[in-house]
C-alpha cells in the first residue's frame, strides 16, 4: 500500500465534495427533514400519532440518511467513472494496487455517510421539538454502530457502482433500494412486525434492519429493539459480504 497515493485520492474526493457542498447538504437534509416534519411534528402534534413515536422514528431517520448518502456517494460516481467517462483510469494507473482504489472509495463513502449522520441527527432533533428523549448513555456503541453502518452504506454503493449500468441505476434505486428502505424497520421497530410473523423473519435479510435497530438500541434503548448480538452480528456479516463482493466486482471491472 502506498499511503501518499491513498491520501491524495482521499483529498481529491474531499475536494470534490467541498466543491459540491451546498448540493450535497440539500440532498442529504431535504428528504429526511420533510419526513421528520410530517411524521415527527405534524402527525404527533395533531394527535394522529402518539408523541412517543418521535423517539422511535429518529434512529431510523439517521440510519436511512447515512445509508442513502453513503450508497449514493460511492455508487453514482463509480457508475459514470467506470463507464462513459472512464475517469477512474487516472487512479487505476496511480502507483498503488487497484484494490486500494476501491478501499479509498469505501473510506470516502464512509466519511460522507458519517457526515450525513452528524448533520441529520441534530437537525431532526430540533425539528421534532421536545419529547424525543434521546439517551447518550452508550457513546461507544453509538460510535461503533456509526462506523459499521457507514461501512455498510459505502460497500453497498461499491457493489451497485460496479455492477449496474448507467441506464439502470435509477431503476435500481426504485426497485431495490426503495423496498429495502420500507422494509428496513426505519419507520417502525422490528418488534412491531410481530403481527406478521413471516414478514418479520423475511426482513432479517435486509441489512437496513440492523442499522435502524442498532441506532434504536444506542439512542433510545427504552424502546424494544433487536438483541445487541443480533445487531452487531448482522452488521458485521453484511459489511463483510458487501465489501468482499464489491471488491470482486471492482477488480473485474477495472482489469481487462
Amino acid at each position, binding site marked *: 500500500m502506498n499511503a*501518499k497515493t491513498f491520501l491524495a485520492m482521499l483529498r481529491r474526493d474531499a475536494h470534490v465534495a467541498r466543491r459540491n457542498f451546498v448540493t450535497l447538504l440539500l440532498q442529504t437534509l431535504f428528504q429526511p427533514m420533510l419526513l421528520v416534519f410530517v411524521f415527527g411534528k405534524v402527525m404527533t402534534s395533531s394527535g394522529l400519532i402518539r408523541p412517543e413515536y418521535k423517539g422511535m422514528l429518529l434512529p431510523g431517520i439517521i440510519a436511512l440518511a447515512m445509508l442513502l448518502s453513503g450508497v449514493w456517494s460511492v455508487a453514482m460516481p463509480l457508475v459514470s467513472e467506470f463507464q462513459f467517462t472512464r475517469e477512474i483510469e487516472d487512479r487505476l494507473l496511480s502507483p498503488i494496487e487497484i484494490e486500494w482504489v476501491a478501499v479509498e472509495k469505501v473510506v470516502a463513502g464512509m466519511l460522507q455517510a458519517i457526515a450525513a449522520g452528524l448533520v441529520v441527527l441534530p437537525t431532526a432533533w430540533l425539528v421534532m421539538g421536545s419529547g424525543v428523549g434521546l439517551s447518550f448513555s452508550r457513546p461507544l456503541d453509538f460510535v461503533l454502530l456509526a462506523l459499521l453502518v457507514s461501512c455498510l452504506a459505502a460497500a453497498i454503493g461499491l457493489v451497485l457502482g460496479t455492477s449496474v449500468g448507467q441506464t439502470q441505476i435509477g431503476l435500481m434505486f426504485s426497485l431495490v433500494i426503495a423496498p429495502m428502505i420500507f422494509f428496513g424497520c426505519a419507520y417502525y421497530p422490528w418488534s412491531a412486525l410481530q403481527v406478521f410473523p413471516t414478514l418479520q423473519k423475511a426482513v432479517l435479510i435486509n441489512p437496513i434492519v440492523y442499522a435502524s435497530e442498532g441506532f434504536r438500541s444506542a439512542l433510545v434503548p427504552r424502546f424494544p429493539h433487536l438483541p445487541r448480538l443480533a445487531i452487531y452480528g448482522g452488521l458485521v456479516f453484511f459489511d463483510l459480504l458487501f465489501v468482499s463482493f464489491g471488491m470482486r466486482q471492482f477488480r473485474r471491472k477495472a482489469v481487462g
Partner: protein
Amino acid sequence: MGETVAIGIRAEGLRKVYTSPPPAAAAGRGAGFSFFARGKRPKQKLEIVALDDLSLEVAPGEIFGLLGPNGAGKSTTVGVLTTRIRPTAGRAWIGEHDVWRERVPVKRLVGVVPQRPNLDLALTAREILVFHGAYFGVPAAERVRRAQELLERFQLTDRADRLVLGFSGGMLQRLSIARALMHDPRVLFLDEPSAGLDPQTRLLLWDLIRADNRRGTTILLTTHNMEEADELCSRVSIVDHGRMIALGTPEELKRSIPGGYVVRLHLAAAPPALLSRFERLPGVTGVRTSGDGAVDLYADRGGALLPEVARLSNEAAVEIRDVKISEPSLENLFLHHTGRSLRD
C-alpha cells in the same frame, strides 16, 4: 532528470482472448445488470482474439509506432503494457519490471495518454495536473510548479482554472498529455494521439512529443495515420488482427513494397488476360485484385504508367471507371500486406 537512463519495452508472445465483451479498460462501452445476467443466460461462446502472439521490443529512447486499422489490437497492446489488461498468455517488461507481476513499479515508470480523454471531470485543468502529481507522490510545491510549467508548455494557461467539461477536443488531448508527463514518466504511451485534431494542433503535438523524446523518454504511439508514423517514429510495426505483419524504419518499410507506387484501378470488368498483360508492362512488379473489385498495380512509376494502362484496357474493351495513384508510403505498405486500406 536529464541524466537518467532511458528504459525500453519488451513483449513476448502476447495473446489476449476476450470471452466476454471487452471491459471498460479496452473500450468504454457496455452497460447492464452484469451481476444479474451472468449465469442465467445460456453461455454464449464468444471469443474475440485481440492479440495473437504479438512480440515486440522497443529500444530505450526510441519513438516506436504501432500502425494498424481500428480493431487491429493496438489499444489492447497498450493496455497490456500499462497493467490495465491482463494478457491471456505471454509476458511483457518495462525496463526490468515484469508488467503483470510488478504492476506498482511499472505504473511509476509509465505515462499513458488514452485514445479517448478520460480526464477527471470534477476538477479544473490545473487540479487535474496537481492531483495527478499527488497520486504519484510529487511533493506539494514541486507539483504546483510543474503543473504551471506544463500548462504553459501546452498552451492551456487561459483555461487552467476551469472545469474541463467545455474544453475542445484539442485542449483535452493536450491536457491528457500534460497529465501523463506530470510524474516525469520514463516511458510514454500515446494511443492515437492526434485522432480528431486539426492539422495545426497536430503539428504542435508532434513538436511536444519530439521534445519529450529528446529528454530521454521512450515513446510508444499507436496510430492509423501513416503520415504520423512516418513523421515521428524511428521504427514502425504494422499490426493487423492482433499480429505483427511488418517491422522496420519507415524508410525500410517503404522500400520493401515491390515497386513502391500503387496504381489502383476500378475496371468495369477484370478479365485475366488483361491482368496478365498489365503484369508484363515494363516497371510493373505485381498485379493484385482486391476484395472490392479493384486492381492494384505495384510499379516503379505512377502517372507515367497510365497511357499504357489505358491503351491495354481499350484494346480489351474494358472501361476504366476510376484510377488512384499512391506514392510510396506506409499506407501502401499496409495495403500490400493486408489487401486492405488503413481506413477500411
